[in-house]
């Protein structure tokens, strides 16, 4: 490989990118847009869920329970209604996600004893929010129940330790102590940005030459296939490294996502991932001789799997076995794993050996294939 020739090709490609304002817009604006959208727009936790209340008892006791819901940051009592019809209407229209119905004998039960259930009607259309809301509501009700029991024991002269909560779970949350959605999403955005920008830009490299008919000119010069490939991809490698750096910096400085790993490991993993993404984009560019076809196929092949099968937002361990097996083929899966581990866990090289090795293998295979496919096409 002749370095001067590689350098010359790189310079030519770089000039071409610089003169194409849309490419630059994609390269610079896309990371910022995705970070803004996903950093601010993606929150899976449920707070201030609008609650409708149908208090059929209207006693002090039922008010005491409802006050606890009002006090919780997870619920806002939006409205007090006096029949089921109002609840049905509000849940149908989506104005109310959770409706509590306190039975008429609530206060009496609390005084005389016995079981009483409070109905929680929940709009489960959005299963995730519904599930979270029920979890929080259960915690509020069981806390209230325990206090009522304690009070009841005291009143009946029983030693109140018999009503002390028999079990207490001492939670410790590791890595993402506040369980912030943002800390979970932002590391993956780095992979998403590289995939999107990398696929869009690199899929055009050869397709552009084909389309403009300059490919023949390039082939007639003494450069080899590998020199063209490396030379053409170097500028994109640089641009994407800058994109990755922007994402990481904005993530840490603006969104306050912790970064606990080492920059060296992040750099190695990013370089490997870039090689894979660029190599695949390049191969598509070689195979499909028109820009539009090339970029749309590149997006299809790279972005969809990164979005859905990399563990970026949807947990891989919850997928059915065949799909889970499929995720091992998705190169982004390994990079997303590394990113999350570096940001949140601070894992070292030893812990990340497996995904890093997978990326090395991918980079080597994609590199070899791309050279080969390109050489064949040139002949």
């Amino acid at each position: 490989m002749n370095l001067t020739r590689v350098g010359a090709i790189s310079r030519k490609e770089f000039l071409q990118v610089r003169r194409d304002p849309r490419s630059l817009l994609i390269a610079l604006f896309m990371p910022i847009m995705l970070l803004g959208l996903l950093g601010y727009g993606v929150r899976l936790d449920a707070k201030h869920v609008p609650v409708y209340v149908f208090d059929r008892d209207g006693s002090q006791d039922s008010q005491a329970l409802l006050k606890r819901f009002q006090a919780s940051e997870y619920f806002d009592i939006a409205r007090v209604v006096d029949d089921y019809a109002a609840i049905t209407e509000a849940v149908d229209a989506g104005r109310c996600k959770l409706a509590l119905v306190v039975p008429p004998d609530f206060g009496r039960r609390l005084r005389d004893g016995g079981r009483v259930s409070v109905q929680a009607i929940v709009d489960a259309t959005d299963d995730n929010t519904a599930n979270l809301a029920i979890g929080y509501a259960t915690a509020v009700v069981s806390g209230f129940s325990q206090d009522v029991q304690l009070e009841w024991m005291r009143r009946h002269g029983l030693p109140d330790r018999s009503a002390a909560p028999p079990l207490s779970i001492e939670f410790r949350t590791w890595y993402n102590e506040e369980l912030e959605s943002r800390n979970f999403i932002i590391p993956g955005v780095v992979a998403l940005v590289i995939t999107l920008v990398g696929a869009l830009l690199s899929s055009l490299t050869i397709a552009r030459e084909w389309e403009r008919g300059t490919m023949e000119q390039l082939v007639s010069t003494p450069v080899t296939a590998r020199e063209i490939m490396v030379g053409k991809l170097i500028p994109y490698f640089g641009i994407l490294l800058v994109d990755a750096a922007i994402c990481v910096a904005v993530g840490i400085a603006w969104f306050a996502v912790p970064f606990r790993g080492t920059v060296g490991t992040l750099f190695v993993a990013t370089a490997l991932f870039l090689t894979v993404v660029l190599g695949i984009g390049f191969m598509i560019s070689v195979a499909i001789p028109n820009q539009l076809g090339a970029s749309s196929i590149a997006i299809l092949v790279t972005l969809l799997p990164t979005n859905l099968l990399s563990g970026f937002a949807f947990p891989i361990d919850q997928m059915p076995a065949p799909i889970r097996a499929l995720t091992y083929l998705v190169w982004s899966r390994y990079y997303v794993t590394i990113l999350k581990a570096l940001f949140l866990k601070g894992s070292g090289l030893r812990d990340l050996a497996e995904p890093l090795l997978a990326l090395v293998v991918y980079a080597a295979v994609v590199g070899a294939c791309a050279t080969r496919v390109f050489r064949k096409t040139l002949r």
Partner: protein
Amino acid sequence: MLGRIFHMIVKEFLQLRRDRYARIRLVAPPLIQMVMFGYAATFEVHHVATAVIDRDNSQESRDLVSRFTASGRFTVIARPRDEGELNELVERGRATIAIEIRSGFAEQLRKGVTAPVQLIVDGTNSNTALIALGYVNRIAAVFASDYGSDAIARLAPARLRVLPRIELEERPWYNPSFESRWFFVPGVIGSLMLVITVNLTAFAVVREREIGTLEQVMVSPIRPVEFILGKTLPSFLVGLAVAALITLVGILWFRVPFRGNPLVLLLGLSLFLICTLGMGLLISTLCKTQQQAFASSFFILTPGFTLSGFSFPIASMPPVMQWLTYVNPLRYLLVVLRGTFLKGVGLAVLWPQMLAMAAIGAIVLSVSVFRFRKSLD
């Protein structure tokens, strides 16, 4: 006039049939997204990898652990010997939850002293962690209440019968088993229609401009309005066909219920299509080449997709982003889709959404037609 429009439409479909990549762009994403969102996209939490150290190894502690596994939400994947091993399982990501029951657990339960249980949760995936903790709370509440009654039964058996106990009786409406699939599959229809119809319309016009055939069309007796109709109607039809296909697959294959009126859905889809066709035309007035149109569509479709409530709830977004969602037609279509599929509601409930889409569609379409006619002059 109708004849001319008809010929335009035939021409558009012929062109579509000849363009191999357009076909892939049209057919592959719906199929892949359908499978992915039907199978892979899930926020449900089952079989969370759990590591357990049970130092007490009593009947009570085993009962607690078995309640975790019996719920189907947790699967014990390891029983490490010491804390070091336990921590390593979490560090390596093998276990998402680690439970440690200290010795003396049963003793404390019997005495009526609060028995502490240590629980470590890997918060990397905040959503899985939150949902899992919700299940932990529910299991712990039932366990506590069962064993609390035991303690009282020993002290004063007669009192037990009348011990007050408040329970939450959950009544999940519309999606009783909390299936993510029911939430996502109707949404896929909306998100795919957005992508496909915006791109299709934008490309149909830009293609003519790029190849230079736009002038030819313009010197023919066809009028601008007819041209626009000829360009947008095929996208409209393709959009409806994709919607019908996914609806059928969703109902027949993924068993998502459809409880509403198909005509209400059809109205919603049509109003939405007016918006997306307008957006496509608008993009086409801004771009000279198909490549540019492709890149520009990203800057419109990505926010459209993220800020719609398709997978991330609008209610949890910061206020500024919530305002932005109001101009997003997909936001309204998703309400209509989920309303007709899962809730079975009709126009009485969905009229505000229909009205909003009609308004957005009218504005976008008239702006884009105006710009388009100007670009022809």
